[in-house]
């Protein structure tokens, strides 16, 4: 080892103490997780109902998806609004808040980059909006 290397090895360097901002940053980043798994689970119920009624309209003569949906909404007066209105609205709000948080955390990127990062949240919002439209159609 040369004298120069020895000097470098002996040299003191700045040390980082306990950082006060560390916990807040850790909390902000950890909360930036999308709730997509939970969202997909809640969406799967109305989607299953729609798929079931679609199959019914395909195989039962003189029935359409629209009439089957209308019949279901009339029959299930309390469950239908919960699955087709309340759940999608809540999912839209949760995912919109999640996209906003991701937008901040990822350093306010452009729309294309944000879409790449938060595609699952955007997908949940689109499907939820579709379920809402189907209910009110």
């Amino acid at each position, binding site marked *: 080892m040369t004298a120069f290397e020895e*000097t470098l090895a002996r040299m003191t*360097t*700045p040390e980082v103490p306990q950082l006060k*901002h560390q916990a807040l*940053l850790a*909390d902000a980043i*950890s909360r930036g997780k999308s709730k997509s798994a939970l969202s997909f689970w809640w969406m799967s119920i109305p989607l299953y109902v729609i798929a079931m009624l679609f199959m019914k309209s395909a195989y039962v003569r003189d029935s359409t998806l629209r009439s089957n949906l209308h019949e279901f909404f009339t029959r299930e007066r309390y469950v239908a609004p919960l699955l087709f209105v309340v759940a999608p609205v809540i999912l839209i709000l949760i995912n919109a808040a999640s996209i906003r948080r991701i937008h901040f955390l990822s350093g306010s990127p452009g729309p294309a980059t944000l879409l790449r990062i938060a595609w699952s949240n955007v997908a949940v919002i689109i499907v939820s909006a579709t379920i809402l439209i189907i209910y009110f159609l």
Partner: protein
Amino acid sequence: MSDTQLLERIKANPSEFSELFTLYYRPIFGYVLRRTGNFDDTADIAAETFYHAFTHIKSFSYRGIAIKVWLYRIATNEVNLYFRHRKRHASLVDRIDSGNRVQFEACLQDDRKELEEELQKHEEFLFVRKQMMSLPLRYQEVISLRYFEGKSNREIAEILDINEGTIKSLLSRGLGRLREKCDVPGANDAGRGAIR
């Protein structure tokens, strides 16, 4: 707790990611600070490093490299981007939700003050770092990891993902060039006398 166990816990519950902060935020922050010499840029780069780790933790499978090595690798890439393109990272404060922003800025201000004072205590280091900045990035990487972070050649090879022979050669050539820079008569800073 092993890296594998920690990874499994984070994958199962993202809030466990704060454990990674507890273990590695300070070393990574220190590494970036000793490379850039600037508190604000360091804070932005360190935040970008951990955010990148958070968003890619599911695709990181434990294949012989430790999480710490992986974080050093990400941080090195971010620092290189910063030096190559002077890429502007989003400000750290802008990443924090408005609810916590005032408290966060106050904490950041305290950390900035403390670390800027700490930096000024190490004249010899500041002199060497200043001379090192004019070297190509490959030399800066190995010299800073070896002499600022105290890593062995094997650890540096893992972090930079190149073989140990190349590290030895880069270190040898880099040190030669750094010594020349430190010996140049014009480089007459306060730390020069101490380093010769």
